[in-house]
């Protein structure tokens, strides 16, 4: 690809001027019409605060929210990847039953609003399934080690059950998209590759495992990473079920401080901290894959 020379044309200049004008206008409206009092000084304490009792700096609401979002996204991605992979294999399976089952699942997930899925799943999972896992019985007194592990990798024991429900819900939702990406990747492999495997006497599973999937994975890596960015963004919907993620903390802070713009601009910046590195990775991967394939 050719690198474009970095010159500014008259059109670019006009566009910049227009965008600058819009920004000034919005700032003006906020300041004058809404009579908005900016108070950025109040924000840092919601990121970190000084704990007088222990004499240390500790994380506060927004940073805790960020960490919750990070944990949630991380585990949900891993789960969605495995589950999505299995669903993709079911989608291309020889068994009509498996194909129909996986197809129905994917279509359902893709045609329902995520919020509806969250509510349905959350109340079902949290009420019906998770009590059996015993996740609600962990507490700092009886299982100090388990509780510490839980707080570090998942959520504090008290929030563990809702956290797990949210995690599973998010994974089940995203897995449908992951499955479609992987399936498309597998189907994009030229049928000559299948035929060569067949002629060499490889079984269907051997062909998939050693020839088709390794090639497909190279192609789907960029869109898969892109889906990860979506997952981080989509994870904000769990705030409606009182998971204390970044968005939830934002709503709580806004309600208590009325610092609407400061809080949400900070929340936006924190999301970007998570998503930008992933997007950058997508960009890099795309370039590499284009070179390979």
């Amino acid at each position, binding site marked *: 690809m050719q690198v474009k020379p970095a010159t500014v044309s008259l059109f670019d200049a006009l566009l910049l001027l227009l965008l600058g004008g819009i920004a000034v206008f919005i700032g003006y409206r906020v300041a004058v019409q809404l009579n908005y009092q900016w108070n950025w000084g109040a924000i840092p304490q919601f990121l970190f605060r000084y704990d007088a009792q222990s004499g240390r700096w500790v994380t506060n609401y927004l940073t805790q929210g960020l960490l919750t979002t990070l944990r949630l996204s991380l585990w949900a991605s891993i789960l969605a990847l495995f589950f999505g992979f299995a669903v993709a294999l079911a989608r291309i399976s020889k068994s009509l039953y498996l194909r129909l089952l996986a197809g129905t699942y994917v279509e359902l997930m893709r045609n329902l609003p995520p919020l509806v899925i969250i509510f349905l799943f959350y109340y079902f999972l949290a009420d019906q399934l998770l009590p059996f896992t015993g996740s609600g019985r962990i507490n700092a007194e009886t299982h100090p080690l388990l509780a510490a592990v839980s707080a570090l990798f998942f959520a504090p024991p008290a929030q563990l059950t809702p956290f797990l429900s949210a995690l599973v819900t998010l994974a089940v939702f995203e897995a449908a998209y992951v499955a479609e990406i992987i399936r498309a990747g597998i189907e994009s492999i030229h049928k000559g590759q299948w035929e060569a495997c067949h002629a*060499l*006497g490889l079984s269907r599973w051997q062909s998939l495992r050693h020839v088709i999937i*390794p090639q497909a994975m190279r192609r789907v890596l960029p869109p898969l990473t892109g889906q990860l960015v979506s997952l981080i963004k989509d994870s904000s919907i769990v705030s409606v079920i009182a998971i204390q993620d970044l968005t939830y903390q934002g709503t709580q802070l806004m309600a208590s401080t009325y610092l609407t713009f400061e809080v949400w601009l900070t929340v936006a910046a924190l999301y970007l901290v998570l998503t930008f590195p992933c997007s950058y990775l997508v960009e890099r991967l795309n370039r590499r894959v284009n070179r390979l394939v």
Partner: protein
Amino acid sequence: MITVRDVTKVFPGGVVALDGFSLDVCRGEVLVIIGPSGSGKSTFLRCLNGLDAIDSGTIIIDGVALDKNEANRLAIRREVGMVFQSFNLFPHLNVEENINLAQQLVQKKKLAEATASTHALLTRVGLLNKANRYPDELSGGQQQRVAIARALALHPKVMLFDEATSALDPEMIGEVLDVMRDLAAEGMTMLVVTHEMGFAREVSDRVVFMDHGRVVEEAASKDFFTKPLHDRTRDFLSQIL
């Protein structure tokens, strides 16, 4: 060695690709199949190793019938090697790994054992120095020679060549035909779909001319080109010679 009786293959959409096709091939015979485009040459080869399922008729290869029986089909796939027009090497594996793969997975050979026979095969096709290259680093002729080595690795009893040289630049056709010629000299049973009439005349024992999914004429290759019996064969030969 190979017995084909009244084989019919109809594609969805109603195209009759093979229409009561019958043929016998002896062990060690080199058979060239020619015919106009769409006459069913590729379909015939693909049916022989089970890539396409036949609708009726029988195919028996080395005493094993190619029928619905999964074990039989697998046995035949492993005993019939196929070389494609478009090579179909595995692009994510290097030359050595391409040839090792089926030996390890199908024959359950250890890596060292597989690599040893891979190197012997590569020496045979003159590409030992390319063992660690990837397919996209090779010329078309080299890729096709690797594909032949890969098919030979399973010690097939029959080799099928579907226009193995048609995708190649003219200057590379010779090197692939040389490998095929050596193979014929070693006594391999070969079914070759090709437009290379020189190869057909020199190397093959018998030539089959097919059209519309049937055998129109078959003859020993020394007779086929000099005394074609049918008008259609004559027309076809006059077009390509």
